[in-house]
């Protein structure tokens, strides 16, 4: 009897917390279909906010910029990070520890400090460059804008690539590389034909993590975007205007996109799991 009550209580508690997490999102999605601008009176159904969202140039441009920054910075971070992971793997314990600690800095540091410190570096560049230009070295006057966004996104994404690829490398049997060499591959072939394919899943998941972190980042971009607007920065400027139901529409769309990605990923994973089970 006691256990039955206990179980009901457990379930109620889980539902309560889930309600707390999903209620605000649910309300937003519901009100994205609201005819009036009111955030508490539901007056009638409309899709107007979705229409105005898709004709909102500010949002569309911001989305395009976010995607551009995410793709470029993730590719660079993934390549540099994978190379680094391979390099670190061949190192001794001591130097590995030093590098690991450096990699932890952006993870551990509050984002606002990463953002501010990068901004100071770029401001320093702007003051230093006039001197270099005077010496006849042609460099851009200011980095603020796309270059600073890319640099900062690559910087905060790099460690995540290493954290993803390094464990996989350590699991890898070193002998397959040597076997490939014995069987007549040169170093390049052995790497690209034998080692890299085994790392591909880890590299791919690192790349996806970078993409999501990059699209989601607000704080670091906020200090390093110059006059450009990424999607989160555009959202921020929309929330400053207090009432704009377009945000609700945007949230609904983003929620749907995320849900689809997760469900598809999950379905693939469970299919993979079943296949592995069968093989066993």
């Amino acid at each position: 009897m006691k256990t039955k009550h206990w179980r009901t209580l457990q379930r109620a508690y889980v539902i309560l917390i889930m309600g707390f997490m999903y209620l605000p999102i649910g309300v937003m999605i519901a009100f994205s279909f609201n005819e009036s601008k009111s955030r508490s009176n539901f007056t009638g159904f409309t899709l107007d906010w979705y229409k105005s969202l898709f004709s909102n140039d500010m949002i569309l441009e911001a989305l395009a910029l976010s995607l551009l920054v995410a793709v470029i910075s993730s590719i660079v971070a993934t390549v540099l990070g994978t190379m680094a992971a391979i390099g670190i793997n061949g190192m001794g314990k001591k130097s590995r520890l030093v590098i690991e600690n450096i990699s932890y800095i952006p993870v551990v540091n509050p984002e606002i400090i990463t953002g501010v410190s990068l901004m100071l570096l770029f401001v320093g560049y702007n003051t230093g460059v006039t001197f270099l230009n005077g010496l006849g070295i042609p460099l851009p006057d200011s980095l603020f804008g796309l270059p600073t966004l890319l640099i900062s996104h690559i910087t905060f994404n790099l460690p995540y690539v290493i954290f993803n690829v390094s464990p996989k490398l350590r699991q890898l049997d070193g002998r397959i590389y040597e076997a490939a060499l014995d069987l007549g591959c040169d170093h390049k072939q052995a790497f690209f034909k034998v080692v890299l394919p085994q790392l591909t899943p880890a590299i791919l998941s690192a790349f996806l993590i970078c993409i999501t972190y990059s699209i989601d980042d607000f704080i670091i971009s906020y200090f390093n975007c110059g006059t450009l607007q990424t999607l989160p920065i555009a959202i921020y400027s929309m929330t400053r205007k207090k009432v704009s139901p377009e945000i609700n529409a945007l949230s609904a769309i983003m929620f749907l996109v995320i849900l689809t990605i997760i469900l598809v990923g999950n379905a693939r994973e469970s299919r993979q799991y079943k296949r592995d089970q069968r093989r066993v």
Partner: protein
Amino acid sequence: MIKKKSLAAPYLVWMVIFMVVPLFIVIAYALTDKSGAFTLSNLTTIGRYSSVFARSLILAAEATLICLVLAFPLGYFLSRLRSSKQHTMLMLIMLPMWMNFLLRTYAWMSLLENNGLINKFLSVFGIGPFNMINTSGAVVLGMVYNYLPYMILPLYTAMTKIEDSVIEAAQDLGASTWGTLTRVLIPLSAPGIATGITMVFVPSVSTFIISRMLGGGSNLLIGDLIELQFLGNSYNFNLGSAMSLVLMVIVLLCMSFTNTFDEEGLEGGAM
């Protein structure tokens, strides 16, 4: 295996230029005045803002404590579910995390308004209206809502390693529910608690958007102060850097505190 240490060189150079050097620039700015001469006046000026620092620490601590209290039972319940169910529940917990935190915080803005949905709902029962938005409570709520998953996940991970038999053994040996909780469950999940505390406290104490959106103008936090020095009206890089330096020290202290706690927990677990 491949022994090409030089492959790590581009990464190292990148991290030194864009991660390590900028931190030293922050320190340099914090210890100089506008003309570049050494001074400690930035750090002493911070004393004027001690109330803001105190508020940040208190609100972040409140949010962390609330997250811990809410997440502990949830993490435990989840860790006792069948593994297929655990997977779905974890997905459900992580899903809101994927939404941009600005959107999530904006959702609460409209819920907490004076003529918002919560007050409207309460007025049906003849209660309220309450003034909820632009209070420190709203800021804590925003922190709890945004960072609760960061507490649930490490707690859950730590608790999946506790076997049912350990809890049953404690009960068989005469421990009360309270005894099982304080002498078995909490010590064994200490590493998760420590990680969770850091993962909630650090972003909470350094946030500047949640406080602005939900706290109005009267609930400035350290993050807001720093932002004002770099992009806002105050525009004083030196003072802003000094504040950043203090924030870094706070975060480091918090982490070293939870680290010792973590190690003690591990020792307890090894027993």
